[in-house]
């Protein structure tokens, strides 16, 4: 008997782009993959999602930028990035050595900066763009576009107009109705949505009687936020017809499967990379094993199966 014939189909498709499996990384936790290539064969990932990149280099916030919390962490990096020119010269050629889907996360402080960054990526060998309108740690742009459905729709329309690639809009959980946000970007032409970005949090140093993070607030990530993220993925799946990339505290295959059952077509692994640099590949293998153990032939059968 041919062993391969028993192997479940792990591939998914998002906006016409085929992924070999539904696992990618959450932007900002994996660089462009360079730092993780010692631990993970990037060919084994469905996609690599890069750290956010802007038209020009950003300094980011002052330190302290990170803090551990129970079952999670706060970060206020402030989207430090080397700018598009360096990214195109250094990071894209690195990623192109690998047979995986390349998703570039794009950041901006104004509508014009998002558009310019997307234009700079024209003709580059990348597969999809993820537009970050949900970073809680930069004053201008970012979250300003991510908390107002009209502004989010406006960014979506503007980048769709200039993008050669499918556009994923990354949504913030720090809103009253994430369904409204998802609906607004879908109507404006988004090809997919990814959620959730981090939840705004705070930690206070009781010895120094001051904020622990230089930015005062930071984004909470890690397993502590997972139930919130699963609920939001489920809600958005009920509200839109475009694919969802689910994330928020995924640490193991069981977590990833929860997100898919709630309605995600693919999942992103973020903070868990910091606890185990090999975790992404372990999750791919774990999903495969779950499908085999449960006689499920196609991973797509999981998507939105819980209604």
């Amino acid at each position, binding site marked *: 008997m041919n062993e391969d014939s028993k192997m479940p189909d792990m591939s998914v498709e998002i906006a016409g782009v085929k992924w070999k499996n539904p696992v990618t990384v959450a932007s*900002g*936790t*994996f*660089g462009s993959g*360079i*730092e*993780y290539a*010692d*631990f993970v064969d990037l060919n084994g990932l469905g996609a690599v999602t890069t*750290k956010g990149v802007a038209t020009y*280099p*950003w*300094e*980011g916030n002052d*330190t*302290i*930028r*990170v*803090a*551990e919390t*129970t*079952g*999670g*962490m706060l*970060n206020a*990096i402030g989207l*430090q990035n*080397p*700018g598009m020119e*360096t990214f195109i010269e250094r990071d894209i050629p690195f990623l192109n050595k690998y047979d995986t889907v390349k998703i570039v996360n794009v950041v901006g402080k104004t509508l014009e900066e998002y558009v310019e960054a997307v234009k700079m990526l024209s003709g580059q060998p990348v597969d999809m763009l993820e537009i970050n309108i949900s970073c809680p740690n930069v004053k201008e742009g970012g979250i300003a576009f991510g908390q107002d459905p009209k502004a989010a729709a406006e960014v979506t329309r503007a980048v769709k107009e200039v993008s050669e690639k499918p556009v994923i809009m990354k949504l913030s959980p720090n809103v009253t109705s994430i369904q409204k946000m998802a609906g607004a970007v879908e109507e404006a032409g988004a090809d997919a949505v990814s959620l959730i970005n981090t939840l705004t949090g705070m930690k206070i140093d009781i010895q120094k009687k001051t904020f622990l993070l230089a930015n005062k607030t930071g984004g909470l990530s*890690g*397993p502590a936020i997972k139930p919130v993220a699963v609920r939001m993925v489920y809600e958005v799946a009920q509200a839109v017809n475009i694919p969802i990339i689910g994330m928020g505290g995924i*640490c193991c295959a069981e977590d990833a499967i929860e997100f898919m059952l709630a309605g995600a077509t693919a999942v992103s692994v973020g*903070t*868990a*990379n*910091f*606890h*185990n*640099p*090999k975790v992404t590949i372990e999750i791919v293998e774990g999903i495969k094993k779950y499908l085999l153990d449960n006689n499920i032939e196609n991973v797509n059968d999981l998507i939105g199966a819980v209604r």
Partner: protein
Amino acid sequence: MLYHENVSVIRNESLTNDIYDMRFRSRDISAAAKPGQFINVYCNDSSRLLPRPISICEVNGEEIRIVYRVAGKGTKELSGIRPGEKINVTGPAGNGYDVDMINQTYSSVMLFGGGVGIPPMVELSKRLKIKTDVFLGYRDCLFLNEDFCDDANIHIATEDGSAGTRGNVLDALKASGVDADLICACGPLPMLRAIKKYAEESGKKAYYSMEERMACGVGACLGCVCKTVEKDGHSKVNNTRVCADGPVFDASAIII
């Protein structure tokens, strides 16, 4: 090259009230390790997600020795690990000291270690072939002061005056009358700032091991950065990654 391994702890004992000495074996990490580099040690309790960066104190064959202070719940958990139990580690992380360059360029060196900045100086002193004076700063209880190679001259400072010179490492330096071409220092920021002032005034070349709160520990997240004088080659801004481009920096390149 960084290695992520599940290793067996060989030994884990206290040196003082809150300073612990852990040994584990790893062929790959020990072969690649340089003084000044560190190990990311992961907690087995997965509610504590982030690795604890702990500097390499010594490499003996395939055995790595790390010496750390119990400062919070994570290091408290580490201190309770018994020989034979396993932990996950990633290493050797960071750049470390360029020992060959130091041996070829300088004829004498002063090593300054303050508190848990002392451990990396042990391996560094073992690999240096030039005249070495070591200045160790403690609050009160001494540790590792007898673990340096015989060729190194040890000078001790304690804040409470219970051993050596009362005061800090610079007080011990003054008392010793020692002079050298090069400074290598690891310790708390106030100590590094004082040494920076001394190095600048005396026109000496210096290298510092920096500390910063880290998340990934491998250079991906940009959580731990240090301000730089010039634009950094990797980041393209005046920030450099402590975990990947450091923790050892040329004193003239960074702002502390």
